[in-house]
């Protein structure tokens, strides 16, 4: 999978979190993920169809998502809850939308499904395609999170 596939998701993630939550994040080195175990405590996942099919996911450490959601809401959120899960669904929705806009500029059209959210330590992330799972770790002041991109290329 080349950088042209990964970069829109990196750009979108940084922009969504900086714009909606005023959180700066730094992308680490992408790697090929071999298992289904989530590295984070709460995960948003969304399906993509179009030029090819697949899923993208974002999985947050508790510390990072509490910082993000607290900033989004303008009030301190101290524990994982239904409202945090709802926010993660909206975050992956926005990441998907922004990344698809960037890809459309290069003539690559994708559509997305309604997102779903899974939480709990050590939960599984199920990607609905057989493509390689590319993970991109990010760091923030509040903790880490990881984007997973799995497309049938």
């Amino acid at each position, binding site marked *: 999978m080349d950088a042209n596939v990964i970069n829109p998701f990196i750009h979108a993630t940084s922009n969504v979190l900086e714009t*909606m939550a005023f959180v700066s994040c730094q992308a680490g080195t992408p790697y090929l993920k071999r298992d289904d175990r989530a590295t984070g405590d709460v995960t948003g996942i969304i399906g993509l169809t179009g030029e090819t099919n697949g899923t993208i996911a974002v999985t947050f450490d508790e510390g990072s998502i509490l910082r993000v959601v607290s900033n989004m*809401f303008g009030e301190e959120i101290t524990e994982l809850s239904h409202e945090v899960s*709802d926010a993660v669904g*909206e975050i992956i929705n*926005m990441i998907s*939308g922004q990344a698809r806009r960037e890809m*459309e500029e290069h003539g690559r059209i994708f559509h997305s499904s309604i997102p779903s959210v899974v939480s709990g330590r050590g939960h599984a992330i199920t990607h609905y395609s057989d493509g390689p799972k590319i993970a991109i770790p990010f760091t923030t002041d509040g903790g880490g999170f990881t984007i997973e991109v799995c497309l049938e290329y």
Partner: protein
Amino acid sequence: MSTSLKILVVDDFATMRRIMKNILKQLGYTNITEADDGTTALEELKRGSFDLIISDWNMPKMTGLDLLKVVRSDPDYKDIPFLMVTAEAQKQNVIEAVQAGVSNYVVKPFTAEAIADKLGKIIG
């Protein structure tokens, strides 16, 4: 800009309704009603007159675009300014919304300044 406007905020994600309400309150708008999709928005429209609708696009049961089409075809609601707020900004989406009579369009993620700017253009 009048802050007494009655505003209907439509989004299936409570998070986005909360963020939008916070921004609207920062801008001085406090008369806000929420709906979690197009069908519940129509129920709210029947209950009372609104000065502005701010709606998401992708929602279960009835999308924002379908809600817009119903609003524009109903003589009681057709003149209500309609701001679409959505992650969908691919060219075809914009064309569809314009053809359906959207007043303006905000793409997620957005800032409070972007919402203020769009409201200024819609309701002056």
